[in-house]
């Protein structure tokens, strides 16, 4: 069953006429069009799932591109356009994962990993240093050392 869907989706991706962004979708106002492109680049094509809707050839991608532009013309802000789509498809449609309690570990991972690594390094160097510290000279040894120094300067 699930293979059916999978096959179907693959078929759609491969058999539709490859057509990513078409000239007739482009908005007249460059500033608005740029907003539309930037938003589209962050939305996952749900049919092919490995491209943004900006790059994808799927029919659904085109419909979503048109929807994004329609909402921009209607005056929605970028966040509103995105939430309009997320309310229909869920967080999965975002290529940039949202920042919430579930994704906290993900977003903070570089800092966490660097911290653990640095901690490890600090312990490593501490241990190395402590192995290197030789016991201080005892008094008789100090006197021998003084005598050698005197002899050298003579």
């Amino acid at each position, binding site marked *: 069953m699930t293979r059916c869907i999978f096959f179907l989706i693959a078929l759609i991706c491969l058999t539709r006429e490859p057509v990513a962004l078409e000239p007739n979708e482009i908005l007249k106002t460059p500033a608005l069009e740029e907003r539309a492109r930037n938003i589209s680049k962050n939305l996952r094509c749900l049919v092919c799932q490995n491209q943004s809707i900006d790059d994808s050839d799927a029919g659904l991608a085109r419909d979503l591109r048109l929807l994004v532009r329609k909402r921009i013309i209607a005056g929605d802000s970028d966040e509103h356009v995105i939430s309009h789509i997320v309310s229909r498809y869920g967080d999965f449609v975002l290529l940039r994962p949202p920042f919430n309690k579930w994704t906290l570990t993900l977003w903070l991972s*570089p800092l966490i990993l660097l911290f653990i690594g640095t901690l490890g390094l600090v312990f490593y160097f501490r241990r190395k240093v402590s192995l290197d510290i030789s016991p201080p000279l005892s008094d008789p040894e100090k006197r021998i050392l003084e005598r050698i120094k005197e002899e050298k300067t003579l």
Partner: protein
Amino acid sequence: MIGEIGHFALILGFFIALAQGILPLIGTQKNNRHLMTLASSSAIAHFGAVITSFGCLMLAFITSDFSVANVAQNSHTLKPFLYKVSGVWGNHEGSMLLWVTILALFGATIAAFGSNLPRGLRARVLAIQGLIGSAFIAFILFTSNPFLRLDTAPIEGSGLNPILQDPGLAFHPPFLYLGYVGFSVAFSFAVAALLEGRVDSPWARWVRPWTLASWCSLTLGIALGSWWAYYELGWGGWWFWDPVENASFIPWLIGTALLHSAIVVERREALKSWTILLAILTFSMSLLGTFLVRSGVLTSVHTFAADPERGVFILLLLGAISGGALTLYAIRAPLLAGGGLFSPLSREGALVLNNLLLATCAGVVLLGTLYPLVLEAVGAGKVSVGPPFFNATFIPLVIPILICCPVGAMLSWKRADLAGVFQRLKFVLLFVILIILFTTWMHGVKEVLASLGLGVAAWLIIGSFVQIIERGGFFKVPLAQALTRAFNLPRAAWGMAIAHGSLGILVIGITVSSTWQIEMIQLMQPGETISIQNYKITFKGTNSVTGPNYSGVEGEFSVTRGGKNITVLRAEKRYYPAEQSRTTEAGILSTVAGDLYAVLGEISASGAWSTRLYFNPLVSWIWVGAILMTVGGLVSLTDRHFRVGSPKSAVKRPLSSPP
């Protein structure tokens, strides 16, 4: 008949590999010379059996023997010869056979060229290779057998996915596998060292060339895949942080860390247990990658059609191989005597920093790749992690690595004079600042990140060659003399300079092509001209095309510059009837300054075609940079000191001076 021979050879290979795995280890336990030397001969026999099997599968593909189910599912009589051959590894079962063949190849090479390895070490290394080999052959025989027969052979096969019928992609898997699977050698050496309880400079001198060779191959494999995506998939992108791309990138990152930490083991006999851990992890990441691609847990255009059953088998293999090695590491690592001391500010310290950052990069990419899976498994909903996440986290981590690279290469061992190194680099730093300022002035502050990228690239390119300049004596002695001196420098020094410098070329390619790409999307009637960069592109119209197994329509774009004809770009849309699928082929003109890239869209009601024309500045520098990195690695590989064998007795060599 061919199928039967291939099948039998594989089964034979399994038993030989098993023997190769078990007997020498018993030999090392009981100090039995005969059992230990059995390792070499069985490794060669193992390879013989597996390559025969692989050869049979290839023959079946070439002769279109459709009684073999694998051939029937993945080939077609009309397919061009090259793709009949590459079709062997264009599917799950065949590519696993390639995997296993390369594993056996590495074992046989160690057996053939490893006569100067101590007998016990060689026996253990080959034994581990044998065990891994037998495990994977078992995987093939039980879950992914390419030699299964069809009772009634169909007259025609189902063909190969047309996207895969391409020269770039034909060679991408072999290079990738030489890389991933090659890291099994470092793994085997690591486990062998743990079993012996000893890691020393000769061990590192043995491990480094194998790791370097695998790394070179993996670099080339990834670059090929990326280049292929760029010219084939029709939208000019070359990296999507797709889970399968990441699966090859993570071992690359850790493998790079391993390359660098092994240097410290060789020179200073320090960082031993960390290097062993890295060697185990690199191959484990290769195995994890294999799992991700073949188990069906991820959706990707790259994944093989696989099923969870195979996933379970690979997961068990991963658990046994990596888990076993890590457990051994946990028990034995404390035995590995610590080596030379060093100040944090030293060459060793720089290499440690390099490792820290690379390991963090690898960890972040791994986490990003697995995160959706993890959240879904625990029922926290479905989230997707795409390029925006990876770009936001990876780039800030990689920049310090790039900046420290030329500096670290110039620090001395044990305790270095950082200020002195900066003194030597002051002209480079000045030049870099000038570049950053100049680019910011030319393109504005909003593209300051690109300016910084160019600055980092210049820092890398020039900074990497400063040592060669110093040691050659350029600007101090006559040019001819300096050139001769430079030429006679050890190859390792040249290799390092080339590899690090070409990293800079790669950075330039990435920075410039992403920031200053020109894209023009419009409807064009035949005869219309568009200006892009300083080229004029005229759409000449379309004609139909036919190929050996496809038909389609081709758009012709004639390109002129300054009135002179340059070329004609042909952008195609193809239909492959056997596989019932379509592809686009972009028309590309590649120059040093950038690529012109033309894609044909749809025809509109008015007869005009929608076209997409791009100018991708300096994009070929990306692939050139990657190839040059591989060249640098190969140059290092031919350095004389790798070819000198390790001493048979335990006499300690004096530490060699730094390059």
